[in-house]
């Protein structure tokens, strides 16, 4: 069988030391990594299982309203933490719109950030993929491109980052806490991912052996709690990755926008924050004109990477809808179908 070392370190520093050996990979819940290993897509020589590391599975609240989420907190636990959901409703909504209940119960915060693209050619070892084998070529170009990127893609790779969670996180200035051999560092999530360029195999700024310890949300981000939505367009109602998604968060005073946050999912190899669009809304009154202008700015640089121009128009529309719904106010209860563009009702139905 595929022989790899399996190491279960007792401390963070042991973990970092173990994973600094080339060919290592961290294992959290494995909902993504194990699948990839079974298909022969990735073949780490050493698995460093961090799922039992102490101290990484808590949510710490700070007096300023910010918080720190341990890398091992389960996606479902985070979404159902009442304090968290009250302060960062769009993040909770994004979490509950991802995958299935079973997967959310297992999946960790760190694993969600670092899940790999769902590009079908990446998954199929018979296909050429620069991300899997640098320099091999990209079978997605000129192939099936319906769901591929429209922003930030390169000739070498047109894939997207599939995470829902990361979209509102990046809009809300989340910080990633990283521990490596040379110590601890903080990186804003916005600059954590790399665009594909000529090196699509390099997906984040993490260096060999670096471990995500936590994700922090600043207290200032909680100021958006009253007007925050995450909306996700899917090919079916649930259990599907986003075609496009949008996180919108506003601070509003007497009908005027003090500050706006906007990020898009499913459009690029990273969660796509769009500051120019945010700035365009500052000081404006809420309403379709403001939101349409913001949407146009957000997508101004978008280019189809194949047969997917529809995603650009769809993204504009979902931006407008997300901003409009955010302006109306965060629903008192989690919508029955979280992040559904069409499920306006808040409900008592369980999440699917």
């Amino acid at each position: 069988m595929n022989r790899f070392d399996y190491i279960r370190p007792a401390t963070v520093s042991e973990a970092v030391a173990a994973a600094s050996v080339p060919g290592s990979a961290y294992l959290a819940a494995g909902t993504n990594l194990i699948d990839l290993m079974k298909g022969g897509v990735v073949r780490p020589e050493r698995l460093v299982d961090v799922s039992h590391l102490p101290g990484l599975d808590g949510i710490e609240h700070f007096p300023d309203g910010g918080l720190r989420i341990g890398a091992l907190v389960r996606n479902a636990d985070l979404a159902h933490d009442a304090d968290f959901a009250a302060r960062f409703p769009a993040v909770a909504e994004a979490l509950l719109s991802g995958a299935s209940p079973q997967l959310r119960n297992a999946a960790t915060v760190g694993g969600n950030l670092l899940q790999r693209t769902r590009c079908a050619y990446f998954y199929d070892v018979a296909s050429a993929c620069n991300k899997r084998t640098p320099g091999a070529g990209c079978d997605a170009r000129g192939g099936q491109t319906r769901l591929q990127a429209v922003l930030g893609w390169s000739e070498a790779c047109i894939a997207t980052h599939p995470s829902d969670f990361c979209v509102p996180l990046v809009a809300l200035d989340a910080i990633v806490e990283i521990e490596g051999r040379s110590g601890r560092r903080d990186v804003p999530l916005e600059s954590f991912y790399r665009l594909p360029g000529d090196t699509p195999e390099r997906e984040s700024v993490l260096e060999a052996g670096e471990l995500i310890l936590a994700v922090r949300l600043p207290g200032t981000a909680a100021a958006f709690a009253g007007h925050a939505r995450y909306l996700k367009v899917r090919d079916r109602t649930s259990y599907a990755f986003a075609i496009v998604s949008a996180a919108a968060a506003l601070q509003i005073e007497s009908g005027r926008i003090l500050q706006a946050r906007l990020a898009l999912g499913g459009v690029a190899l990273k969660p796509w924050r769009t500051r120019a669009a945010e700035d365009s809304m500052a000081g404006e009154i809420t309403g379709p004109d403001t939101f349409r202008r913001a949407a146009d700015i957000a997508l101004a640089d978008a280019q189809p990477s194949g047969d997917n121009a529809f995603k650009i128009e769809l993204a504009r529309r979902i931006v407008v809808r997300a901003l409009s719904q955010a302006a109306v106010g965060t629903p008192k209860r989690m919508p029955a179908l979280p992040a559904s563009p069409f499920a306006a009702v808040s409900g008592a139905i369980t999440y699917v």
Partner: protein
Amino acid sequence: MDFNEAAGTNPIDQTRVVGHAHDRVDGPLKVSGRATYAYEFHNEAPDAAYGYMLGAGIGKGRIEALDTAAAEAAPGVLLVLTHRNAPEQGKKGKGSARAQMASAEVRNFDDPVAFVVAESFEQAREAAHMIRVRYVTEPGRFDLVAERGNAKKPEPKGSTLADTAVGDFEAGFAAAPVQLDVTYTTPDQSHAMIEPHATLAIWHCDRLTVYTSNQMPNWAQHGLASILQMEPTDVRVISRYIGGGFGSKLFVYGDIIITAMAARKLQRPVKMALTRPQIFNHTSHRPATIQRLRIGATPDGAITAIGHEVWCGNQEGGTFETAANQTRLLYAGKHRMTSHRLAVLDLPVGNAMRAPGEAVGLMALECAVDELAERLRMDPIELRVMNDTQFDPETGPERPFSSRKFVECLRTGADRFGWAKRNPKPGQMRDGHWLIGIGVAGAIRENLTMKSAARVTLDPQGQVIVESSMTDIGTGTYTVHAQIAAEMMGVPMERVIVHMGDTDMPEAAGSGGSWGANSSGSGVYAACDKLRRVLAQKAGFNADDVVFAGGKLSQGNRSVTLESLADPQGLSVEAEIDFGDLTKRYAQASFGAHFCEVGVDLATAEVRVRRLMSVAAAGRILNPKTARSQCIGGMTMGIGAALMEQCVVDTRHGYFVNHDLAEYHVPVHADIPDMDVIFLEELDDKSSPLKAKGIGELGICGVGAAVANAVYNACGVRIRDYPLTLDKILPHLPPMV
């Protein structure tokens, strides 16, 4: 028993047990995990070795170099089978079984290249990944649209001809005052059942037993015997429980053949299951179609000319998708033509999937009828009613339908669904940012019958044991057999034990084409009828008016218990039902109508089904509970076909790209609203002694069109290219307000 004349009154008509909703007798086994599926016969082969198939990574070409040295040396590996050491195989046999790894040629993606057997599954899989293959790729024909011009008239598929013609279609169409000429396309689809194709092969000297997941064990037995160059009697196929098939397990694929070859070579039981991606590319799929519909009508709505042309593709020697079939029967019209053209494609093999023919044919025909109704400014139900026919319109009044309640289905559904509230003008109903639409479509599925045998044994405790090679693919056949035997023998259901899925038992119809319950149930009926006669005679009764009830048989005021008549070793009889020419003399089909309400999001073009109701007339409903489940399952698949299901073809490399259940979308629970199924009362005495007809596929037939018609009614956008994903609708919606 020959079934040549309409059935008279018989014990089934008592409907003490038959016709009532019964829970599935195999339900407790399934929910507690005790039903043994093909991969789970651990006691039968505790020493089984594990196989893993390596499929070809190209669509067409040949293997130029194959390096298996590392795999052979890998830990635990017992055998690496490739075309270099695969045993010689016989010719393609029944059930489409074809030789595997017989040469270096690659006929399609995931055609087997190697089969690794090891002590554990993980060892086999890892060793398979160590095999290095170099291919010479040849240009393949992977694109139906591009190959359409090369399509040829195919050989008949069984008794189904490629072409039919009545009157003069071209002239009739040209002369019609109202004409419709539209082309629809449907994509390749995958069965996406839960249980993978899996096989455990065990040899006892020169006899082979395979535990596998196959809808047609006897076809598999013969197909396997032919490939392995054996006598069918030396092959035993066991498929006790099947975790869904939908047609993908009608035939024999690599798992069965290769596992058997490897087990023979190793003289040790071997088992294997296909991986999910291999199911998509190695086994069959429902082939894509291009369908041109031309309908001519008078201004008041009478169809005068109807033509349905179908183009599809398959591998060399493959069959065609009979998508114009229903058009031969559903509506009246003087001038008629249907045709099927088949192109050679090098994609994975295409074959039957739930309601082959009608499922996709109706997605085109029933939308075209909707389009015609709009052109005529007629209600689409009235148009269908006006063109109803009570006889086979290609043959004439001499071939009436055995039973046909199509109009009743439409009328009942219209009434119950609230059809009158529909606004025929699209885009008029709103609910928030939803555009609301309502659509209807008719359903028809040919009623097929197959000869079927069964053995019934009365044991000394008075229990009735029913045995046959029939399969239950999750449809409820175990339960229906128990009901029929209980009804016939006058015992409660708990006194009946049903065994099936074993070719050592009498050959039954198998599960396919909706013939399962009706045909195999008639086999059980025939065997019970025989047992009743034997028992009556033994008891000294005059067979004709004996009453079987309460575990006794009685005549006048004399009665005898069943157990008193059984021999110590039990009393067994076997019989077979053989269907004569009633299907020739009478057109036979199940009918239905679907009513659907959808919402189309004004901004995002997302489509969601809000209500779906089906009315069905399918002869006697043997068990309303399992029948309803079949309909709901079919309706769900119909929603999938309309809105999301599609094998995405990479036309450069020749394979289905989205080959797992995360990327090949079938509806999830949240996509399915409350669904309603209404059965109309009907007895079809020309179909079988049970007076039932096929129900398993009717539920999917026409649903896609009902959804598409509702989408049109909602937003005025007519998409003729399934599935109706939002990217196709979006460009036609108004700019966002």
